[in-house]
């Protein structure tokens, strides 16, 4: 495919953030191109745990996720891609101690304030939602029925379809070598396949964000950490509908994947910062150990695949989203710390509002790229599933 030589906006990174941003931009009439080093979704999106939740512990992520869920719910329709479905199957945090119950109760109160119908339920109620869980040690659970999950492959396919219809171009296997600028104004990118002139560039490369930033001598604290996930053989759908989470057992999250029926999930075991993506035995063993404590019947089902991907982490586990002061026309939406997929609809809406109008109704200040140099770290986001 011959590349365009100019556009209004160049989005670097063809993951969920880059594609969704391109979608909002193209819908607003901008001529947009997406540059992707490998193929769309290949970075972190296709490796994600598929969970979409509003049960956060701060005002910004709660509101952002509420907005995201509204969009996720209608995405199939919005993209005219009915294959995509948001499964609104909830998130169930299993709680084993009074301290856990207390801290989750506080979060629930905050979530309720913003209209999220989460609540603390009894172990018996939790078992009604997921009949296979072992509740012998569970004291309570934090439950929100409006959280859910979605298949990232279908989400990307839907977005690619829509971009095609909007005449936005996506260039796979194309690498940005240089960011062109005159003084402090960006002017385009030099890629492995030629130059594209544009006055606006969005860095949507998540784990790779610092590589692109360094081309302009910029530094934002985003580092790649290796996380892993597994999927099991499929079994009857809807045995494990919600995302089930247990901090006690390995910080595990697990659910039945929307389209296959296999259990997808992971535990809290990270390595890094590192670019290495080989899988580890320790992860596999800890999965077996912890998953079977949460849902003992999982001991009967074999794992079929284990893989690794990056969490693009920041010091407070919240993304870096906004306008970059040093260069006019340069924007960033990266460092999602494991929440890129779920946050994508609202986060990209926010950054596109900022690009087009200089402001947004969404609480985008929370993700201010300069909070780190000011020493204003946010409370660490609940980084789970």
């Amino acid at each position, binding site marked *: 495919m011959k590349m365009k030589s100019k556009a209004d906006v160049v989005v670097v990174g063809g993951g969920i953030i880059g594609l969704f941003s391109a979608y909002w931009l193209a819908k607003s009439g901008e001529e947009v191109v997406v540059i992707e080093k490998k193929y769309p979704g290949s970075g972190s999106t296709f490796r994600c745990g598929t969970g979409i939740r509003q049960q956060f512990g701060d005002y910004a992520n709660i509101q952002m996720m509420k907005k995201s869920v509204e969009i996720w719910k209608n995405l199939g329709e919005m993209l005219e891609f009915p294959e995509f479905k948001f499964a609104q199957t909830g998130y169930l945090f299993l709680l084993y101690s009074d301290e856990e119950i207390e801290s989750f109760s506080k979060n629930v109160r905050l979530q309720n304030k913003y209209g999220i119908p989460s609540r603390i339920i009894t172990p018996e109620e939790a078992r009604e939602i997921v009949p296979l869980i072992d509740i012998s040690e569970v004291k309570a659970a934090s439950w929100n029925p409006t959280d859910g999950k979605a298949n990232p492959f279908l989400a990307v396919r839907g977005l690619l379809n829509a971009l095609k219809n909007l005449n936005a171009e996506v260039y796979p296997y194309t690498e940005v070598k240089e960011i062109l600028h005159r003084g402090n104004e960006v002017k385009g990118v030099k890629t492995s396949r030629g130059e594209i002139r544009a006055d606006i560039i969005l860095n949507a490369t998540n784990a790779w964000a610092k590589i692109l930033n360094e081309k302009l001598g910029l530094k934002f604290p985003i580092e790649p950490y290796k996380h892993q996930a597994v999927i099991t*053989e499929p*079994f009857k759908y809807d*045995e494990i509908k919600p995302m089930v989470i247990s901090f006690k057992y390995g910080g595990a999250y697990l659910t039945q994947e929307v389209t296959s*029926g296999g259990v997808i999930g992971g535990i809290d075991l990270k390595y890094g910062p590192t670019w290495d993506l*080989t*899988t580890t*035995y320790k992860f596999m063993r800890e999965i077996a150990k912890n998953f079977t404590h949460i849902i003992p019947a999982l001991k*009967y089902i074999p794992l079929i695949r284990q893989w690794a991907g990056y969490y693009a982490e920041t010091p407070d586990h919240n993304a870096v989203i906004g306008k970059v002061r040093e260069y006019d026309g340069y924007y960033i939406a990266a460092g999602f710390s494991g929440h890129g997929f779920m946050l994508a609809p609202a986060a990209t809406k926010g950054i596109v509002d900022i690009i087009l109008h200089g402001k947004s109704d969404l609480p985008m200040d929370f993700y201010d790229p300069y909070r780190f140099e000011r020493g204003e770290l946010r409370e660490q986001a609940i980084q789970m599933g």
Partner: protein
Amino acid sequence: MRIKEHPVIDFSKKKGRKVTIYFEGKPIEAYEGEPIAEALHAAGIRVLNYTPRGRPRGLFCAIGKCSSCLMKVNGVPNVRTCITLVEDGMRVERQRGLEPLPQDYHPPKWKDATKTEGDVIIIGGGPAGMMAAISAADHGAEVILIDEQPMLGGQLVKQTHKFFGKRQQFAGVRGTKIAEILKEEIEKRRIKVFSRTSAVGLFQDGDKKMVSAVRNNKELLEFYGKAVVVATGALEKMIPFENNDLPGVYGAGAIQTLMNTYGIMPGKRVLIVGAGNVGVILAYQLIQAGVKVVAIIEAMPKIGGYFVHAAKVRRLGVPILTRHTILRAEGRDKVERAIVAKIDENWKPIPGTEKVYNVDIVALAVGLRPSIELLHQVGAQTTYVRELGGYVVRHDDMMQTTVKDIFVAGDSSGIEEATTAMLEGKIAGLAAALRVGKADLRAVNEVKKAHEELMEFRSGPFGARILEGLEKVMIK
């Protein structure tokens, strides 16, 4: 039905103790040492499960590599019944689509996995793996041999024909006998053998290698070594035609497993698709077992297998139809008929040339593809090479992959045959022993000799294509 008399194998000696298993509540006679699906086949049961869309499925590969035989065993779904051995009183049920998990609220009692250490870990107990184990052990390496099957030998255990080649390569000896000889050689050495043990992961562990495995479907084992030889063999290919999933459409290897390993009649009348070596040898073995072979069809303009084998089955009255393909299998819940047709130069079926064969088995002998899953997982570079059966891992002439100290041998390094698998296994075993510092100059000479034998073997009629393929994967 079980084979009563066989010109080559005496099954009465091999049979284990009689046990009873229950298929959907009905008692079925089975013998210890045989897998569930094979025992059910002997009892005339062809449909093992129904897909989520309700299509019946039966056996296909019979070596645990596809998912065609999944059943519920003692209430547990997704059990590979083709390699799970029968136990007295076992309850076996057809799986209908995706089944629920058993209602079980007891977390398993977690104990740390048994750790086994050695110099060289070999995955796969077929001809390549067994030779690798013997060669490495001969040079003083501590060897661990892991194999998924109930018995060592890989596909040799079902090769009742005599091998070609030179005397030192077991020429004139039947595959089943070669398996026995190699097994005895392994027993003579201090090789730690783990049967019914599936290697499920291959990892880097600092300077070492780590293999995680599951024994008997329940026990987690850990293996640590300095080098690993992956000799995981191959899996049967499938070709597209209508109802290619109907029970009774079997891989050639599955038919050999049934009749040559377990003494079970695969069917009454068989159509073989593919006239390569496997197809023509299978025809002869079927006739030996007393099964009628109605025809062998082959899409290529000429027979691919060894001329002597093809001539033999033709003399026995089996027509070999080149330039023919299978259009569809027909039958209610299992194969009752197969429809074939002639094809033109563009591989399109010629209308009016259809033939109907009344058969209960369609045997697919349409090639194999290498099993490279573990190598892929550990990050070995792969490349697609048609001549070698599909995706293969790149390796050097010592059989080392692009991951240091991880070697490959046999069909998993490219589809060839048992003789070359044994030679490659030998090279890989020796190279691994050298790498872990156990072998000396003698091993280097043995590698040289094995290379010469390989070259000589590959100079035959089938070698040219293999050499072309190897040209594309070799790291120089």
